[in-house]
């Protein structure tokens, strides 16, 4: 249990140092979960965890004691294999006890291998890539219909944007001017088989998103000062949907997992690797 496990109420303004401590704890849980489950996706969880930490602790209007709050900000983990990251941060934020994390991928647990709506705080099930942005668009349209001010954050993997569903929705969101829709691309440059550049060259993603009619910004997805700057940009009054490109490192924080596809979908191979990961993260 970390000292943040019981944080209730609406999101506060934590310092960068505090956020760093929280993300460190979340990284530890990610490693413990996949090692305990002997399966799972640590690489893409470690690349997105700093951004999730910022969103859930500093940015989003949410209340763990009232999960159905009508005006709550929504987050969709479209890259549903990063379930360890989302589950860890939801537990740390107080949506459910951190003790439940060790049930990840086990038969009697709600913590399905890929993100599952039955878990407290989860807005929609995901796992098959490319669908979350469309769901986010639907939620953003509903907010406008209901004159609600909530925002919808959608976390995309970079391999994920190879899916056609993404680009269909990029066009539609531009048509409907859903300025309350904020896509965050986890640009870690590695997908299951290989580097994204080798599997499917993506060209200038920033220019592509802009040409589809989105406001675009790039930032460092591991630097809380830069993350803060990106979401301040996203919060400005505007007409267009927002596409944030987070430059990240796959497996960030565990040297042997960084910048490789080997740990996209594999846990530490043995006790030695497990302990090395915890040590490098600085687990206590």
């Amino acid at each position, binding site marked *: 249990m970390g000292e943040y496990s019981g944080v209730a109420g609406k999101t506060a303004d934590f310092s960068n140092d505090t956020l760093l401590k929280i993300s460190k704890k979340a990284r530890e849980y990610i490693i413990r979960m996949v090692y305990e489950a002997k399966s799972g996706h640590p690489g893409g969880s470690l690349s997105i965890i700093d951004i999730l930490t910022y969103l859930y602790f500093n940015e989003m209007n949410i209340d763990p004691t009232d999960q159905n709050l009508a005006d709550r900000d929504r987050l969709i983990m479209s890259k549903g294999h990063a379930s360890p990251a989302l589950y860890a941060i939801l537990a740390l934020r107080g949506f459910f006890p951190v003790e439940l994390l060790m049930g990840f991928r086990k038969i009697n647990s709600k913590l399905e291998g890929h993100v599952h709506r039955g878990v407290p705080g989860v807005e929609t099930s995901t796992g098959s890539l490319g*669908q979350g942005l469309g769901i986010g*668009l639907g939620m953003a349209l509903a907010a406008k219909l209901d004159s609600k001010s909530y925002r919808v954050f959608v976390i995309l993997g970079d391999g994920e944007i190879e899916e056609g569903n993404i680009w269909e929705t990029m066009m539609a969101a531009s048509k409907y001017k859903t300025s309350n829709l904020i896509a965050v691309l986890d640009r870690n440059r590695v997908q299951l088989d290989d580097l994204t550049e080798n599997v499917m060259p993506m060209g200038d993603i920033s220019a592509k998103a802009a040409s589809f009619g989105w406001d675009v910004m790039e930032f460092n997805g591991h630097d809380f000062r830069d993350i803060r700057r990106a979401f301040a940009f996203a919060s400005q009054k505007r007409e267009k949907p927002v596409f944030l490109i987070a430059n990240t490192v796959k497996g960030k924080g565990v040297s042997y997992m960084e910048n490789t596809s080997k740990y996209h979908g594999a846990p530490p191979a043995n006790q030695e690797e497990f302990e090395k990961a915890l040590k490098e993260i600085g687990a206590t």
Partner: protein
Amino acid sequence: MVSESLREKYGEKLVALGESHKEIVVLDADLSSSTRTGMFGKKFPERFFNMGISEQSMVTAAAGLALSGKKAFVSTFAVFLTRTYEQIRQSVCYNNIDVKFVVTHPGITVGEDGATHQIIEDTGIMCGLPNMKVIVPADTVEVSSLMDYLVDKTRTPYYVRLSREKFPVVNQPDYTFIEGKNTVLRDGADLTIFCNGSMVGHALNAAEELKQQAIDAAVINVSSMKPLDRENIIKYAKSTGHILTAEEHSIYNGLGSRVAEVVSEEYPVSVVRIGMRDTFGKSGKSWELFDYFHMGIKDIVDAGVKCFLEEDKYETVS
């Protein structure tokens, strides 16, 4: 029997229900003039989303709207919806949310547009999805009652298969759709024809002709393909001993398969299936295509006679 357009009725009902149910939203993929959702779009433009020729985006956006408390009606041609099978599976059915897929232009009654547009495997695909319910209405009366039911009583995924063609009105004006219940349109003692959609009118005509040959055929509308009225099917398997199924769909994974599953588990009798036999359709007038693919009234009559006379072959009637 007077014929009326099911999709026209769908459009009218959307407008009428949209008036009193502000939670209704409608999505289409550049076919709103054909599916008739355009009528809703004209009346309630702020709740109508023409997503362009982007079915994946349409289905996922519908899921997001439903997850935010809306009741989403999604329409396009049946054949194009199936390209989003996986979005339907994960984003709608797994979440078990209030999205209604109401499709038009399935089967060979699409006619001249030909095989690319004539989907004959869609109900099989949809019936396989957990949480999905599948309805194939027979006429405008049924569409009207079904729409009231879907809006007032349900919050889960449905697949509703309408048609391009007008269908004869076969139900009584006071008919009420009940999920999981078959409608006995004509009772009979010798043979039962289980049918739905366009084949209901054909089956009623065929039953008249069978009567001339002293074969008393029951005609039963199985609009609720999932859930299925097992009790009614077993009852008629027992009372008539001979079953014919007729559907504007592949005989694989369609109505015929579903009926055969029930009787083979509960009370085995012979089942003769009329439908598309593992083949694509083709261009032509729809009445020409029914004959071409051996799904016309005469084909039902012939199959009925054969099925009834070959009693000894099966020896299944106790």
